[in-house]
């Protein structure tokens, strides 16, 4: 079995999760604070990939980043980056596609913390950043871990978006889910089964560990 698609999938999922941790944490924190109309709009946009057909998202990304026109053309001319049929394109699409899996649990975890926690920290003279770092963040750890694992697992399972923007280039954009499809197309059921089994096992172990961890954490008064 050619393991490249598996490695590519794991690499994609790891990078996507890392990027989403970096963007998702501050974004979720901001969204968890006072509501406003702008925030509702932003939240709706972030949540859309949950229900939008992946091919629709992939199609628009393909249009937006096509090097023949507009944004894609400009990016290629100015920075020499191409998001279509490239690994960075997969990363970009995955970040958008998996964003609700990171934002939503982290946001509700922040909202569940009593407001008086931050207030107490402020009265002790601590800044917003210190409060975030030493009070809020440590107390949402279980949710953060769940969000990271789900983001990772969800990225492993991507198919439609990845196929639309990345295509099926061996070693570049052919991730495991596409390798399964490709193998079936070529009537190579053994290969399809191998890839599927690996994905199945990884996903099962990840989801199972989230459940086990959360049950253990349920003793915490905040859960």
């Amino acid at each position, binding site marked *: 079995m050619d393991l490249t698609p598996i490695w590519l999938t794991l690499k994609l999922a790891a990078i996507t999760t890392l990027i989403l941790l970096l963007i998702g944490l501050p974004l979720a924190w901001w969204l968890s604070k006072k509501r406003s109309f702008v925030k509702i709009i932003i939240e709706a946009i972030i949540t859309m990939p949950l229900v939008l057909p992946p091919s629709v998202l992939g199609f628009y990304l393909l249009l937006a980043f096509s090097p023949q026109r507009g944004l894609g053309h400009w990016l290629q001319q100015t920075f020499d980056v191409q998001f279509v049929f490239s690994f960075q394109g997969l990363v970009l699409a995955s970040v958008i596609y998996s964003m609700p899996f990171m934002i939503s649990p982290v946001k509700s975890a922040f909202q569940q913390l009593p407001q008086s926690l931050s207030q107490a920290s*402020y*009265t*002790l*003279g601590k*800044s917003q950043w210190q409060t975030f770092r030493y009070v809020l963040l440590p107390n949402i750890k279980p949710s953060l871990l769940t969000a990271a694992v789900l983001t990772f697992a969800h990225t492993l399972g991507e198919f439609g978006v990845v196929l639309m923007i990345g295509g099926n280039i061996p070693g570049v954009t052919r991730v495991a889910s596409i390798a399964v499809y490709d193998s079936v197309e070529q009537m190579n059921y053994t290969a399809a089964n191998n890839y599927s089994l690996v994905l199945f096992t990884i996903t099962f172990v990840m989801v199972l560990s989230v459940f086990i961890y959360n049950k253990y954490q349920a003793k*915490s008064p905040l859960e």
Partner: protein
Amino acid sequence: MIAVEIEKKLKAYKGLQILLIKKQFIPGSITRITGPSGAGKTTFLKMLAGLINPDSGTIKAGNTIWFDASQNINLSPQKRRIGFVFQDYALFPNMTVKEHLEYATNDTAWINRLLSIGVLETFTNHKPNHLSGGQQQRLAILRALATKPKLLLMDEPFSALDIKMKSALIKELQALFIGLGATALIVSHNPQELDGISTAELEIGD
């Protein structure tokens, strides 16, 4: 001297209600705040601390203006350096007793003194969910004192303590306030609780 003259619209059960407070607090005084539930006692304390903004009016501490709606002055809670005991304690679930105090101050001698006042020396490595209600409440009081504030705002700080512990702690606190030169505002539902130590009274609502 802390001079307060503020107004705030409160959304109450009966509809809109105006909370109007005009009062001066003498340095070193201990004021007992009373009033029915929902009258705005907690809101008043939070406005003093800078956690909620009044609609109009002024708050002055000595020569410093903390809040002035007409001049758009609103000092942040961090700069007001107030000790605040929250009604729900607001303890940090991730920190042990000792870490709570270390988060607030670096002064080890002071931390040890506070721990002994709160009778929590043997619980320094416990997190809040492994403390009893009374221990949690004492920790909340100690944390508020850790920064050696000049103004202490305490929202029903003794409600979970048994009588013996309460009277011992109140005695200790009284001495501590004198040592710090602190002014204290204490919300209390129990009429006898602060007898003999409170020097002023503020009734909110009705």
